[in-house]
């Protein structure tokens, strides 16, 4: 049993190692995405700093500082979750483009292990990017984390990552079923999740039907909980109302995402869609 788990972890690690090697070879693109992430986060922070000027009035510096942190927590948490979503959703599309999809699906690797390996690689990349963006933004904008509860924030991020993995695995099905337009569909899902999850504003300002969508997005709870932890120092007990819904979404979305993926793989084999394109 232990040997089998070890063997599966070894197989999963193959995907982590491959993705790290690919990141090194595509280093110029990685720098592009990093710079893009830093610039986007900085721009959002500057909107916060300029809010009193834009609104045409004066504002308490503490309130401005709070607004900046409110926006930064949203944008960096979203960057972290978004990277997980994008990379997992691109799992199939990328291999189609490289032309390796048939070899990956022919290999004697259980699909769960394959996806677990891709999740590991994705988490490594998302953590690296998020830490680098936070460090770079802190150089330009004063970030007051004196009240932050780091433990609660880390737990929320971990739970959020797990919840997003399930959603992302479900979205990776689109490129499996629609060889040409599947990835675009996944990006639309990501865009809708961004809109409804309260990344830059409280979800209470959204129209009623969007609030229904925000209710099922794990990002809503993670971002809300992160703000409580980092702005107000909420501990694990205090963030529990946001933690448990994210846990529930993760507990449902991962097995559901896996099941849908396996169904889509069988469908792709029946219809001849498991092949390279591009």
């Amino acid at each position: 049993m232990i040997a089998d788990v070890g063997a599966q972890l070894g197989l999963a690690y193959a995907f982590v190692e491959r993705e790290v090697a690919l990141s090194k070879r595509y280093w110029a693109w990685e720098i592009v995405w990093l710079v893009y992430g830093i610039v986007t986060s900085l721009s959002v922070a500057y909107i916060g700093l300029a809010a009193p000027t834009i609104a045409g009035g004066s504002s308490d510096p503490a309130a401005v500082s709070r607004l900046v942190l409110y926006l930064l927590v949203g944008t960096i948490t979203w960057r972290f979750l978004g990277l997980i979503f994008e990379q997992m959703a691109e799992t199939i599309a990328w291999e189609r483009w490289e032309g390796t999809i048939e070899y990956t699906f022919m290999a004697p690797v259980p699909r769960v292990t394959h996806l677990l390996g891709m999740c590991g690689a994705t988490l490594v990349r998302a953590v690296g990017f998020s830490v680098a963006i936070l460090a770079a933004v802190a150089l330009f904008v004063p970030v007051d984390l004196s009240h932050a509860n780091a433990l609660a924030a880390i737990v929320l991020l971990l739970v959020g990552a797990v919840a997003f993995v399930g959603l992302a695995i479900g979205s990776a099905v689109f490129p499996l079923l629609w060889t040409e337009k599947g990835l675009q569909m996944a990006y639309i899902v990501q865009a809708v999740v961004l809109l409804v999850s309260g990344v830059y504003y409280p979800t209470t300002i959204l129209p009623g039907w969007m609030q229904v969508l925000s209710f099922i997005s794990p990002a809503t709870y993670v971002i809300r909980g992160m703000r409580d932890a980092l702005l107000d120092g909420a501990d694990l007990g205090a963030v529990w109302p946001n933690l448990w819904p994210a846990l529930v979404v993760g507990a449902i979305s991962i097995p559901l995402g896996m099941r849908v993926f396996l169904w889509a793989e069988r469908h792709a084999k029946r219809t001849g869609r498991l092949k390279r394109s591009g």
Partner: protein
Amino acid sequence: MAIEVRERIRAEKKTAALAACAVSKAFKPARVVPGGGMTVRAVDRVSLSVWRGEIYGLLGANGSGKSTLIRLFSTLLTPDTGTVSIFGLDIDRDELDVKRLINRVSVEASFFKKLSAMENLVYAGRLYGVPPDESRRKVVSILRRLGIEDPRMKEPLDKLSRGMQQKVAIARAFLTTPMLLLLDEPTTGLDIRSKREVQTFVRDLRDEHDATILLTTHDLDEAARLADRIGILHQGRLVAEGTPEELAARHGGGTLEDVFMTLTGRRLEDADATDAERPT
């Protein structure tokens, strides 16, 4: 688990390496177009057996169904009807065990183009449970044997010629020591010298590693040179099967080209030209 399956199969000498029974596969068009978009029957009730240690050549023009058949045997497609077993294991029910016994070389090299040959092959080895150190040793040995010098092994694949990429693809398949190797037009696009090197290596693999090989080709010379038995595939159907001598005796004598013409009504080169548009 993989070792147990291999040992059991090695003990069962009489099991066919591959047995396909009345396998059919048709593809529907993605969208119904007025006046077009007909369902294409790529493989039509094909039954064949490949015996352990045999090199079986599947000969056919472009669009005859060769690649579809290979993709069915590789677990990348599921048959509409019929059954396929590899060393007695059902390709659908025992999919993971079957995958441990097979590997495939397709007409496209199919690699992560920015990774080196070594990186690609060590990754492939990991997927088949070959430890990285063992992979590195074997990769150097196999690639040297295929005429690739050491410095080229560390260059990104997209810097290598098409012929070299195809040799790396062949090395990938051999690295995992498959019991059944599916070669889908492995020498297409290679120069004469590379073609000969690959053909020699295929024969050596069978002789040295007890491998069974199913080879598709539209090269009559390659089929005659390598295959113990040949099956001729025409419009998705297996129209003849036997050793080159048996085929010649059964179908009016002469060369393999004459046999192909007798069975299909066309020369192979002409069939390639006219059937190239037929999707499979």
